[in-house]
């Protein structure tokens, strides 16, 4: 193997690592990954091991606080990689792109970037949406378990350890993992605590469970709707109609082409939440 090949391999591995990290950043409102949503346009590693990330949003008017949160999260997860020497995140085609980009470049907070009038606490907004994501993921796994004949009595008595030990099908596994990933929003996760508490950490009874589920359903319906709207607007705005090749289909292409992320088909989310 030549030195050139080795450095190509390393570069490719580093790009993959960056994309894998970016995939963990969620749109706070939609609770979906910024890479799956097609928000990230590029993530390049330069010769000095600095990472340059570009992203864009479904409209010129998307909420500045959410835009800022996502950019800040991207910066953080990529900066955590040991070989990364610096991260530059740039938002394109947004009403406040200049202001947000300048704030990000200087490592300012949302409030510092937008001044005194930015009186909302971004962290509070973040928590609000983490709780919604928790509810939505909880609804998805509970709904799945109810559909596979777990009784209300069993579900309200189940502990986290018991839920973890359940033998589930592929779909159930995925939903359970997504739920576990958001559990800590309620506080430290203890294996013998109840698996299903409300977002206010209240216990449920077999009598209250059905009503609780119909309440949670609203949260899921709302998020689905927002997700569909955002995807549609992004597709129109940046003409994403033409399907892009998947990563595996591009093996013969140049390194640069291979380093593009594989696009997730827009329709796939429906079955996910349906």
């Amino acid at each position, binding site marked *: 193997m030549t030195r050139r090949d080795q450095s190509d391999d390393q570069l490719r591995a580093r790009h993959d690592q960056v994309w894998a990290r970016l995939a963990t950043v969620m749109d706070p409102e939609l609770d979906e990954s910024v890479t799956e949503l097609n928000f990230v346009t590029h993530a390049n590693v330069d010769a000095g091991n600095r990472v340059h990330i570009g992203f864009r949003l479904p409209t010129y008017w998307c909420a500045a606080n959410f835009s800022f949160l996502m950019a800040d999260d991207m910066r953080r997860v990529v900066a955590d990689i040991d070989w990364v020497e610096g991260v530059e995140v740039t938002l394109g085609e947004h009403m406040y792109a200049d202001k947000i980009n300048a704030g990000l470049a200087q490592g300012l907070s*949302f409030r510092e970037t937008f001044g005194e009038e930015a009186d909302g606490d971004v962290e509070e907004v973040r928590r609000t949406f983490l709780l919604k994501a928790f509810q939505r993921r909880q609804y998805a796994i509970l709904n799945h378990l109810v559909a596979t004949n777990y009784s209300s009595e069993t579900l309200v008595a189940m502990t986290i350890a018991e839920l973890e030990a359940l033998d589930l099908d592929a779909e159930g596994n995925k939903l359970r993992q997504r739920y576990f990933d958001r559990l800590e929003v309620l506080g430290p996760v203890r294996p013998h605590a109840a698996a299903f508490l409300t977002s206010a950490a209240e216990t449920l009874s077999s009598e209250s469970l059905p009503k609780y589920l*119909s309440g949670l359903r609203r949260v899921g319906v709302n998020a689905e709707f927002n997700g569909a709207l955002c995807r549609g607007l992004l597709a129109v705005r940046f003409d994403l109609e033409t399907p892009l090749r998947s990563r595996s289909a591009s093996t013969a292409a140049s390194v640069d082409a291979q380093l593009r992320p594989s696009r997730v088909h827009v329709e796939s989310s429906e079955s996910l939440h349906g």
Partner: protein
Amino acid sequence: MYKTQSGEEIFVIDGHTHFWDGSPSNQKNIHGKQFIECFYAYHSNLSPPAEKWPLEKFEKYDAKTMYDDLFVNGYDDMAILQPTYLGDFYKNGFNTTERNSAMKKSHPERFILNGAFDPRDGAKGLEHLHELAEKYKIKGAKLYTAEWRGESKGYKLTDKESYRFLEAAQKLGVKNIHVHKGPTILPLNRDAFDVADIDDVATSFQDLNFIVEHCGLPRLDDFCWIATQETNVYGGLAVALPFIHSRPAYFGHVISELLFWLGPDKLLFGSDYGIWTPRWLIDKFMAFEIPEAESKETGSVLTLENKKKILGLNAARLYGVDIEAQKATIKKAGGYDHLKAHAHAAE
């Protein structure tokens, strides 16, 4: 007027229409360009292909086009004109009460003209509200709580200034307050689409009706919750309804939730013209049934009775429209001539 197959007439009040000018010659800056293009993305994304307009028509349409789309080709009997000023983006404003008043003037039997106010305008804004009430006898107003203005990043209906405006509106008989708690119109920092403030003012101002446009999307879940607790909170279906074509399953979810939490007496049809046109929306809506799996979950059913309420009866109640008298007025003005011709052709 929509006629069912059995010949029953359904009176349609379109709760959300605009007569705007987003054309390049009226654009003040890049924001004006981006604004109309964003609307156009909504239009392109959610309209059936055959209903898509070229950008040029979308940017600015004339009064006759609008009249025909709503009342001749469309099934609307009446339409509510909701203003959106956007004076910072457009030289003569985007869709002002003044501009809309020309439509009202040419077809008074067809239009309900609404005003707008922004509590951040202070004394001058209050004066303007008085003027609008006096000059146009407005019975409703459109509010954008999430709009950024200079250093301000939106306001809440619970702000002290907002209370002053709502008190004035109540006194002036401007009793239908349409609040845009919908998809982003301008960026925001605090959660300005939060619908909690509606809950507060709906309790404090029992004589006012609060119509939450776009049903609080993207906060439908919170909206359903507060709307169930207040008797004077309504949901406007604009933006939610067009999903009936591209994502009927999503629309089924949303409408069944709304019927479950708010009930059929609290929902208002709106095309959001010129983003969408009423003909295809109503054709699809009349043909729509909530999927059985949804109905089983929520018990919601879109009966003909419910459809009639959503399409016109609810808005008629809010705006004091006597449907039979209004039909007679429209007929006298020749507004139903095209229907007659159509009926004859069918015979």
